């Protein structure tokens, strides 16, 4: 499996105004190269939830997208901290530490990570106080 298209983005902590820009660029890039709408819809859900988590929970972070020669799409969301102390809790639907400010805008239902897990074909999350890395893979139907 080889990457045929690579893109990188930076997401800034607390930048609610630009929230969604990265996901929107990922979506239009994948549409341009002919990834199926069904797969793109799943990726849009996962990338938006992950992007928002970098903004509201982490100190910002980086997003890496690779489209592979077999049509699969890999997304990696990497942040420098503060990390997730209890991953099992974080993956539980309804569990959230979102701030009052974030909740006021409709975030904080504790459904982001469960949504990401549901729509992705491969889901891997690693976390320590030095940061969280979320790696996702979406396969294209043959």
């Amino acid at each position, binding site marked *: 499996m080889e990457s045929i298209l690579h893109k990188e983005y930076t997401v800034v902590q607390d930048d*609610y*105004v630009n*929230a*969604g*820009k990265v*996901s*929107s660029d990922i*979506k239009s890039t994948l549409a341009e190269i002919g990834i199926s709408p069904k797969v793109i*819809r799943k990726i*849009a*859900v996962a990338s*938006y*939830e992950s992007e*928002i988590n970098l903004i509201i929970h982490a100190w910002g972070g980086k997003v890496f997208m690779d489209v592979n020669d077999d049509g699969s799409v890999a997304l990696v969301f990497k942040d420098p901290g503060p990390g997730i102390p209890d991953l099992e809790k974080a993956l539980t639907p309804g569990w959230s530490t979102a701030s009052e400010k974030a909740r006021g*805008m*409709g*975030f*904080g*239902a*504790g*459904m*982001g990570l*469960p*949504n990401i897990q*549901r729509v992705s074909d491969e889901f891997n999350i690693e976390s320590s106080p030095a940061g969280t890395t979320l790696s996702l893979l979406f396969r294209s139907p043959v």
Partner: protein
Amino acid sequence: MTIKELIEKTGWKLATPTLDTSAEIVGAYCGDLLSWVMGNGEPQQAWITVQVHANVIAVALLREFSCIIVADGANVTEEFAAKAAAEELVVLESGLPVFESAKKLVELGI
């Protein structure tokens, strides 16, 4: 039913008058918690919400809703309407509570 027909039948206010309203509405989703909307919404639905800020526009576009219907008289600012128009997201204001707005859609066969 198209957005245009919905406006004709309800008299709901179109907050983005510069946009094309010929898109079909296929069903609707009600909700204000963005991750629920992200997880359960479907393309071409009308999204009924009381949330009015930039992230609603992002969610609606990523989820490919045909329009959003702002309920309960939540305040659609000029800034919000302008941003929605720039991003080509049709915004309606029902002036009715969420339940009444949804009921109206059901009555009209959406």
